[in-house]
């Protein structure tokens, strides 16, 4: 059996080498919704134009859990796809297991170190070698607002946390739902991390969610963040538990709610409703986090391949992923910004431009750029899960902020 396989591989390798170095790349991803599917189709075309075969391996399911399960069984059986949509700390976990291929040659040839900010390349590297290629950068700490609703209620859009609660009180008095929220653990965590950033600042955020520093975790600042987070509950509607994020976005679109705290993937919903940024809807940094940027980077990690031709096709694809053409088309469709900072941004809208400005500024100064906890950028899925549990439990019960602080610190310790 084994022998037969080897023979076949040899024969296959032989014929391929004899004709041309055309390989096949199999890409596991869950970009299956309209705009996302269009985005990835661009890469497929580019790979095919380069003379290689593209084997699409899309596994539906927004959060990628299904795809992730398939990937693990493929990896265990020794037959991983060429590339898989893996992000954040998971890249390190796969790297530790020895599955990922080094992209150093491609990276050096194409100056990845120069075009990518260091925070991005750190996420893509395992033991100093590039093992994944970033496709985009999402900003998580956004506030999406409906200006008409604010105007009708005679309220200014908030820029600090105090202003936020003021505005929310007035909006509530005017009879609209101030905050559109979906009560799912990851959405609770998304709002919570923005509040931690607003209350404690970027350094505190990093202490808590990246380093899990015990002192920071048990500090009064943390308790204060929990207290502010609980206030959100006064300004959401009763239908919030279990609501999907895009349903919450549509509440803002229809003017039933004034604002939503969500990453920039929400922009796709506004675009689909034919709304123009700056006129029909406003994208503002989460109150109190101006000049700070919580990033969430999607990436394709490259798995070690068995045949030389497939490896070559894989390297070609890695190069294409970071090409300015792909980065532009993909991110125009997806609502995010390119991972390269040297690109012409003229095709992008005002929200993306604002996002890019803050991104460059924070990346250059090294201050205010933090990895998103809620989206798996700052810590392992284990610790992230423990944080989710505590945050959502706190938000949905009458637990005191002091207890929540203690429990969060304990849960993080236990999960490490």
């Amino acid at each position: 059996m084994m022998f037969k396989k080897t023979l076949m591989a040899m024969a296959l390798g032989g014929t391929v080498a004899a004709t041309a170095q055309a390989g096949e790349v199999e890409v596991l991803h869950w970009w299956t919704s309209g705009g996302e599917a269009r985005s990835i189709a661009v890469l497929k075309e580019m790979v095919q134009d380069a003379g290689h075969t593209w084997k699409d391996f899309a596994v539906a399911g927004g959060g990628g859990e299904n795809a992730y399960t398939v990937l693990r069984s493929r990896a265990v059986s020794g037959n991983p796809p060429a590339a898989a949509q893996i992000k954040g700390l998971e890249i390190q976990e796969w790297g530790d297991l020895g599955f990922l291929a080094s992209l150093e040659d491609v990276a050096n040839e194409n100056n990845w170190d120069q075009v990518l900010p260091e925070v991005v390349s750190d996420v893509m590297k395992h033991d100093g070698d590039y093992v994944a290629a970033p496709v985009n950068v999402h900003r998580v700490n956004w506030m999406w607002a409906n200006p008409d609703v604010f105007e009708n209620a005679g309220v200014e859009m908030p820029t600090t946390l105090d202003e936020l609660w003021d505005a929310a009180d007035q909006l509530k008095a005017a009879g609209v739902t101030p905050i559109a929220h979906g009560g799912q653990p990851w959405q609770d965590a998304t709002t919570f991390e923005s509040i931690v950033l607003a209350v404690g600042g970027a350094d505190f955020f990093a202490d808590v969610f990246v380093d899990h520093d015990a002192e920071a975790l048990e500090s009064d600042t943390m308790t204060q963040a929990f207290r502010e987070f609980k206030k959100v509950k006064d300004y959401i509607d009763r239908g919030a538990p279990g609501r999907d994020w895009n349903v919450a976005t549509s509440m803002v679109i229809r003017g039933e709610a004034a604002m939503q705290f969500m990453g920039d993937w929400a922009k796709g919903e506004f675009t689909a409703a034919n709304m123009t940024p700056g006129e029909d809807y406003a994208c503002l940094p989460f109150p109190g986090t101006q000049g700070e940027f919580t990033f969430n980077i999607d990436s394709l990690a490259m798995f070690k391949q068995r045949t030389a031709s497939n490896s070559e096709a894989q390297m070609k694809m890695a190069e294409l992923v970071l090409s300015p053409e792909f980065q532009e088309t993909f991110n125009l469709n997806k609502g995010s910004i390119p991972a390269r900072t040297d690109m012409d941004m003229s095709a992008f809208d005002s929200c993306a431009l604002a996002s890019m400005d803050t991104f460059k500024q924070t990346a250059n100064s090294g201050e205010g750029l933090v990895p998103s906890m809620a989206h798996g950028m700052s810590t392992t899925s284990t610790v992230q899960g423990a944080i989710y549990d505590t945050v959502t439990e706190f938000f949905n019960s009458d637990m005191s902020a002091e207890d929540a602080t203690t429990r969060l610190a304990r849960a993080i310790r236990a999960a490490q």
Partner: protein
Amino acid sequence: MSVSNKKGLDYWLPKLVVSPTVAITVIFFYGFVIWTAVLSFTKSRILPQYEFVGFDQYVRLFLNDRWMGALTNLLVFGVLFIAICMIVGLIMAVLLDQNIRAEGALRTIYLYPMALSFIVTGTVWKWLLNPTVGIERFIRSLGWDSFTFDWIIDPNMAIYTIVIAGVWQASGFVMAIFLAGLRGIDTSIIKAAQLDGASLFSVYTRIIIPSMRPVFFSAFIMLAHIAIKSFDLIIALTGGGPGNSTDVPAIFMYQFSFQRGQLGMGAASAIIMLMTVLAILVPYLYSELRTPKNG
């Protein structure tokens, strides 16, 4: 010669036909149960690995607040779900047993929910129970402005909405089991009792229901395993929320094994679930299956 050949075929054929099923069951059921048990003693994270750590994963499991919450929820849900299904199913079966008109049609109507998947049931009840679109809003629109029915968004009450949806789905099925049981009882006993002047009520409580012991047994087994492995209904209805208030062991197990890269702890929780099922079923099976032999 020919006789012995024929005997050989008779002897081997059934075994041959059954063997693939047996092999598949042994490998894919018992084999994987054993594998899960082995994994629960390792420090496996995102992939299986075989570095043994003893009972560490079990200790971590029982120190986890969420797991303890999930167990409590399972207890509340399981007891209520099984009890209410049995009571409602029995009452419906007895009422249908009164030689009523259109019994066939009614039976089908009651059985229909079972034909739906739990995902459908969960989604429909999610909408019905949602205070901003469902029952509460409907009653309020009829004029009862203060009517409130918001269990699904109340962390203390949400687990009961799972019971409601579960009972709606499964009680018709329990009714069918009971009805079959009722029909299986020898009518001459009932007639004899009636000749002795027993009322209809005492015929049911003294004769029919006690003689349906095996039927209760099978209904209980069916419902207990639906309760313990319940996953899809809760995912569709509340997603385990609000917060973690409707979390159950099956959801916990899935999330920890497949989403959070804690295969070892997930396996430990799966083994605890298996133990729970065995702890309920083994004594019951033992007492139920032993009595006919002695009696």
